[in-house]
């Protein structure tokens, strides 16, 4: 064999740090190359030799105790630890040195500071919340587009609501509501299982003329919310929460009709 496995790869292989494909390549090579196989065996033996002894040192009890004491000192000698400056343990009381010693900060100042902080934190959370919502609608649109591009619009293809609903049983830890709206012009065409925003999601697929509507749903702990519409990359989204479930209808259908569809579902 001329193409020996690189030494670095040999070690990554021994340490289980290679991905499956590369790991299989190394194995294939080892099967036919005695040199490399010998290397692997000898490094494994070395690891076994190291592993056979308790080489790890534990912190001695006395050291641990004195360390705790030091941390304790640190903790109450320095109220403003956060600035990272170390104060000498036996330094004299601050008042005698500090030019700030006699400066009393009026109480209203603290109140103002607290208010500023509260506002800042609030703004931060609001921002994070907004961003999360934005991400979610992006994910939903991406899921919708994917479902149209790949031949994976439906896992179960049927217009019968009594086939779609049981199909989800055993695949999800919740049971989505599936309604037949074909008399109203929204044909049920099937269901699909997806994974979105960290949960398993039921996608129930409807069609209005040539427009596909993905109705995504999963359980949510939040309180009920009225339908809220938005648009993303030319798609219309309407999301709401009802009876412990989150719903989002996404489609290229116009907003008025999509809202019509949603209000029929919610009846």
């Amino acid at each position, binding site marked *: 064999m001329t193409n020996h496995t690189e*030494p*670095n790869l*040999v*070690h*990554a292989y021994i*340490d289980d*740090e290679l991905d499956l494909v590369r790991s299989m390549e190394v194995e294939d090579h080892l099967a036919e190359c005695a040199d490399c196989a010998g290397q692997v*065996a*000898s*490094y*494994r*033996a*070395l*690891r*076994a*030799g*190291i*592993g*056979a*002894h308790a*080489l*790890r*040192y*534990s*912190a*001695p*009890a006395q*050291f*641990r*105790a*004195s*360390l*705790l*004491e*030091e*941390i*304790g000192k*640190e*903790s*109450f000698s320095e*109220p403003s*630890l*956060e600035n*990272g400056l*170390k104060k000498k343990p036996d330094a004299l009381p601050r008042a005698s040195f500090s030019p700030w010693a006699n400066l009393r900060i009026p109480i209203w100042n603290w109140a103002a500071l607290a208010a500023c902080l509260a506002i800042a934190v609030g703004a931060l959370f609001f921002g994070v919340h907004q961003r999360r919502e934005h991400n979610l609608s992006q994910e939903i649109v991406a899921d919708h587009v994917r479902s149209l591009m790949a031949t994976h619009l439906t896992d179960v293809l049927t217009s019968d609501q009594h086939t779609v609903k049981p199909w989800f049983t055993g695949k999800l830890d919740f049971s989505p509501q599936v309604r037949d709206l074909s008399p109203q012009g929204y044909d049920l065409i099937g269901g699909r299982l997806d994974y979105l925003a960290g949960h398993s999601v039921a996608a129930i697929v409807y069609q209005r003329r040539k427009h596909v509507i993905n109705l995504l749903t999963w359980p949510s702990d939040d309180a009920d919310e009225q339908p809220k519409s938005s648009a993303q990359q030319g798609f219309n989204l309407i999301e709401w929460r009802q009876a412990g479930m989150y719903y989002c209808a996404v489609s290229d259908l116009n907003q008025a009709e999509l809202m019509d569809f949603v209000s029929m579902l919610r009846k």
Partner: protein
Amino acid sequence: MFSNSWNKFLLTGVLHSQGGFPTDEQAKLARFDAVVMPHLDAAYNLARWMTRNTTDAEDVAQEAMLRAFRFFNTFQGEDGRVWLLTIVRNTYLTWLRRQIPQQNAAEFDEAVHTDIEAALTPESEVLRRAGEQQIRKAIAQLPPEYREVILMRELEQMSYKEIAAVTQSPLGTIMSRLSRGRNLLRRLVGGECGTEVKHRD
């Protein structure tokens, strides 16, 4: 006043003797207790192997723990062990800079050891059965940049990614240091073992 148990220390030691603490300080202690203290042994182990003696290990480990406590507000919720060992390693490097005159002499001299290596090819069986003292001695002889990655990999069972985070080096560097470190270690363990066998014969 301070008990060996950290929990007792937290609840009875500091808080009672001080007659109450600002709540954020209490919270900090509790969080430090939960996130950092479980890795004290890992910190001490790294310090002990890198400094190669108990006194310096205690100095380095203590300094590192105090730094960790002082800078705990910069901890962003990443892996506590990775975070702490990064501090231990930096503390060790600072310590090393003060030690350089004494340290150099003790380092592994590759030229001296290559002769042994040339004479003896270590067999897997020899490596597998190597005695504790042999292995300890061999690891202690490794140059520090190899020793630290071997320690983190073999004694702390850390992933390449974690080791890369602690040493602040790319994965490729970790891989090549491990590779060279193990190669050297194999020669040291195998070589010394071979010499002993020779003596016995």
